[in-house]
């Protein structure tokens, strides 16, 4: 349900760190809560994101939610495939449904996020 190799934040984003690049998406819990995703609004490559700030939004048939960055850094890639196939976020949120890749300023920021067990406990508490 919640891949062990990922880190999670309280806004239900996940982070996969490879070298100094972090891939960011939304968790299975988040996509399930949203329902059918119809549109993802993402920033441009080169823009800076900072911890806790909105970097885009995800729209479902039910609502719109802001996407908050779990870390700070510069965007090096965005998942342009989501423009034509936003439903990928529902179908494969941890892989093909990724949203942005960020060159991480401070790896300790990633380290400080929740691991899968903590996140699962956090969700249980939320529910």
């Amino acid at each position, binding site marked *: 349900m919640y891949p062990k190799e990922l880190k999670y934040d309280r806004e239900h984003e996940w982070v996969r760190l490879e070298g100094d690049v972090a891939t960011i998406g939304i968790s299975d819990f988040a996509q399930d809560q949203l329902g059918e995703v119809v*549109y993802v*609004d993402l920033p441009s490559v080169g823009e800076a994101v900072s911890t806790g700030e909105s970097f885009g939004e995800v*729209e479902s048939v039910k*609502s*719109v939610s802001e996407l908050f960055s779990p870390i700070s850094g510069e965007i090096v890639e965005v998942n342009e495939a989501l423009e034509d196939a936003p439903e990928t976020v529902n179908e494969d949120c941890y892989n093909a449904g990724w949203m942005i890749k960020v060159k991480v300023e401070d790896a300790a920021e990633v380290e400080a996020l929740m691991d899968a067990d903590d996140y699962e406990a956090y969700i249980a508490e939320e529910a």
Partner: protein
Amino acid sequence: MRFIPVTCGEQDEMLGSVGAPSIDGLYEDIPAGARLTRPLDLPGAMGEIELAAHIEKLAAANEDGSRVVSFLGGGCYDHYVPAIVDSVVSKPAFFTAYTPYQPEVSQGTLQAIYEYQSMICQLTGMEVSNASMYDGATALAEAALMAARVTKRHRVVVSATVHPEWRETLATYVESGTLDIVEVAAKDGVSDGAAIAAALDDATAALLVASPSFYGTLEDLRSLGEAAHEVGALFVVATDPVLLGVLEPPASYGADIVVGEGQSLGNAMSFGGPGLGVFACRKAHIRQMPGRVVGRTTDVDGRTGFVLTFSTREQHIRREKATSNICSNHSLNALAAGVYLAAMGSDGLAGIGRASVAKAHYLEDALVATGRFERVFGAPFAAEFTLRYRDDVAAMQARLHESGYLAGLDLGRFSADDAGLVLFAVTERHTRAVLDRFVEEVSAL
């Protein structure tokens, strides 16, 4: 609880629950100068017979298109409204302030709006239309704001050939500093292409022009559109939808957003309002489009149905992220426009356009031939034209008014630079006999 009337006891109860000491206490955030501190100055009650006579007397003090020959235009036109329009619009099912949020009880209203949107798309050549806005002026201002959202830029270039009141509305919208407005002066009654190209830069969100312009002239949309696109700005074109039966649709000149005053489509002049803001754009930008939009879908049983769609742009879903604080529409006016277009059909609409344009050109020639008026602009025009009167405009208009004519719009009212200029609007309602009689009156001045 019942809401009418509110007893003193209920009033006290409500004040108590919100923690206000009195009605004045409740309104203390409103500056004292703006508050009414005396009872409303209303006359006493009347019986029905007396009231009907009183209202008729008030109404008789007004002049309308049936009692005078009006050549007034400038955004509000005396086109003929076929009987079928009022007949459909006054059906109780349509004649309601109910907002169609619940598709299960609003299919008729929703479909009517959907048909209106479809026809506006056909007329303008654009891919999507909203359910309508307040009027042409607000549609233009909303287009500027939308262009800023789409391009993430904050500068708008507007040609001074756009209606002065529309430009004022735009200025009101951006008073808080949301956008920088750059106005480019007109040249010979049309947009100054070179000056506009010079004013455009890579911080420009949109170029706003009108064709037909305020002066009635037709703009060189192709080159203006190219200039806008060259710097990555959106090209916003204001137009008169009733003329799109004969004019090339703005989309074919590269317009990204098309706006217009839809009053000319089956709506009465009605003292200048309520109007109908036409707003259409390319599908790529639909998420940034202001206002309501109705979509066609299918229900669980596969039956066609209509719904308000893309509602996440609207303030009842997300106030802080809404594309506009206008999330209403002029449904009844849009319905009238839809009925009018459906009744006219494309041939009928082309006929209205052709007749209006031909008669306007006939009158322009005839007025110039009287020697009282002279041409000021060389640009082509459609159904409205500007001439210079060789003498005192106010005296001429007063004199012709006595003979039952509203002799055009005095452009000196809007700008000292345009003193002496008069704008005439002609529609299919002006018969040749009427035009000839008017020209005789002018010759006799």
